[in-house]
């Protein structure tokens, strides 16, 4: 009955692994909604500058990722705050990138010029990136640490400069 013992052991071990996996999955279900601590999904998007940009370009430094559209009033309202934060931090190692919510380049360009937004703006296409990020409300702003993990998510807006500054402080603290 020696061999049977091994068989028993193998079967019980298989059950433990497969069953454990099933129960584990039920406990830690990953949903489409991003949470603090998650890694932000990759993207490759066209910038207003005419070149393609990857998320990986922004690695190593804190990154503020703002999803916005010209049709969304709070998004429009927070543009000046974003711009002044960008001006203040662009040389101190904090990056700020806006991702437009699948509008046409012409519309985005005109709007950016109108409000004087000079920070890098990327153009989502066919809502693909916003779907990856599980957006439900606009604007949504992700604060991503230098370690490449999401530290904070601000859903809705408009954000004030203080809102952004306090989160940058946290990003910088985490870095040092």
């Amino acid at each position, binding site marked *: 009955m020696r061999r049977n013992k091994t068989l028993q052991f193998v079967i019980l071990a298989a059950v433990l692994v497969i069953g454990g996996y099933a*129960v584990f999955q039920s406990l830690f279900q990953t949903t489409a909604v991003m949470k603090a601590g998650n890694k932000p999904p990759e993207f490759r998007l066209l910038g207003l500058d005419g070149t393609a940009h990857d998320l990986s370009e922004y690695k190593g430094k804190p990154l503020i990722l703002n999803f916005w559209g*010209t*049709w969304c009033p709070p998004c429009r309202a927070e543009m000046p705050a974003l711009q002044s934060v960008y001006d203040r931090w662009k040389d101190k190692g904090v990056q700020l990138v806006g991702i437009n919510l699948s509008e046409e380049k012409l519309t985005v360009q005109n709007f950016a010029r109108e409000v004087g937004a000079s920070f890098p703006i990327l153009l989502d296409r066919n809502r693909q990136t916003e779907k990856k990020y599980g957006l439900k409300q606009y604007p949504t702003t992700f604060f991503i640490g230098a370690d490449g993990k999401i530290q904070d998510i601000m859903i809705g807006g408009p954000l004030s400069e203080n809102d952004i500054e306090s989160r940058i402080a946290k990003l910088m603290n985490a870095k040092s």
Partner: protein
Amino acid sequence: MISNTKCECGHQNHIGTVLCEACGKPLIELPDDGQMPAEMRYDGVARRSQKANPSWIDRIWNFFSSVKVAVWLIILTLIGASLGTIYPQEDTFINLDDPAAYYKQNYGNFGVIYHALGLSRTYQSWWFIGLLVMIGTSLVICSLDRVLPLYRALAKQQVRKHLQFLTRQQVVYAGAVPGDQNTWLDGFAKQLKKKRYRIWRDGDALLAEKNRFSRWGPYINHIGLIIFLLAVLGRGIPAWHMDQYISIDDGQTVPIPGTNFFVKNEKFTVEYYTDAELPPTLKGSVRPKMFNTKATLYQCTAACDDPTRDPVLERVKTHDIQVNHPLAYKGLKLYQYDFSEQLRLISVSPVIVNKKTGEQFGPFKLPMRNPALTYQVGPYTLELKDKFMDFGLDEQGRPMTKSRDPNAPAFVFLIKGPDLSAGGEPYIYFPKQNDKVKFGQDVLNRAVADKLDIRVNAMKDVSFSEYTTFLNVRVDKAMPFIWTGAAIFMIGVVIGFYWQHRRIWLRFDGGTLTLGAHTNKNNFGLRNEVAAALNRTGIDVPAKSLDNRRKTH
């Protein structure tokens, strides 16, 4: 436990054996009801779990190999599943941002408790999954534990069984036979052969057996269930499963996220029942008869991941997607999910009219999405300066778009041409007639409006989308395994329930016939079969009198 496992016939049995594996003599004291113990099911052979001095591994094994435990697991799963139907589950709502609040608002305190206990997600809960895992474990272990001993018992059957084995079967006959013993035995064997029994003889003992394969039914159906459960589990593997919804206007092509595929809605159509087709109580109601998305699936062959260029698409398949008729391509399935009536322009082909001369130029094609930045129409040059998908004004009264869908498109051109200033003049154009009136196009364009007009001459110059179709995109690579498991399960239950394993033993002791017969299901049929065979060979007994249970009552 039994210490002496050697039978009087000389066979050495495994520990836990109840009936001698060779001759069938009971090895333990049997209850005095004259019937076979329950172990007859496996011919009394020891199951693997029945061992002396079990180790911890044996204990776990014993737990899962018990049918009693299996039944408890089934009952608990049944109760658990019913709890989940008290209130709707969270995942029946597509957008439920705050489930706790929803249950409180709709179902009061019970709702709060229901949600707090996690019953609003019953079927994804750890305990429910855990029960299913335990059922799966029980299926594997119960089957393994029984199938091998059963195989062993059925593979080497002894024809001559112990007298007690025969008299304790459910169907029993004892008595004299008419005429010569051997002649009778030949005749009886012939009768049984007619009934498709296989016959083995050992002197004056006989064993007749049929439909042995039916015994494998339960194990086959358990294998089917195990495959099914594993396949369900496999759906959790991210690459095996995809489920998303996309909405497409007529004429629009959209990528399917996470794949290399694009899908175009060529045309959506919907048909409603006419009043004549509806019964009196439904007359006047809107009842869709059929809706159809004529869809084309494209595969991207180049520049798929390059946002600076347009992807190169190759047509793969065109299909009429209807409810119950999804588009399927290499494991990717597109289902008709819903639709909404939403009149949107796709493109217009207007002409430019010089109001002074009455001359017409064009038409030129102006798509609502991604138009060109310059158009040369006759003597006029149009430069697109700004564009709004859904024209409106913001709080400061500046023009903005209210959404990103072309519900009220507006184009701001800088027009150069005859009778216009050299630097060009701005001109706002609303392709939709009602927007033109609503937003006062002519007022906005002031003097230019007197010089020229951009207009669409006929309906044929307008292409529009009437409906937006909603498709559900699915990849479910586990499905073939699900169906395989289900099919194997069905084969198992059918051979297990619609055929019955029947065995008849008989022996002569001093000229007296003793016959015992056994089946795992349908005693009634076996009794009739035995009685018929006995009747045809000159022993007249009513079928009912063969029932061993009844005699003792």
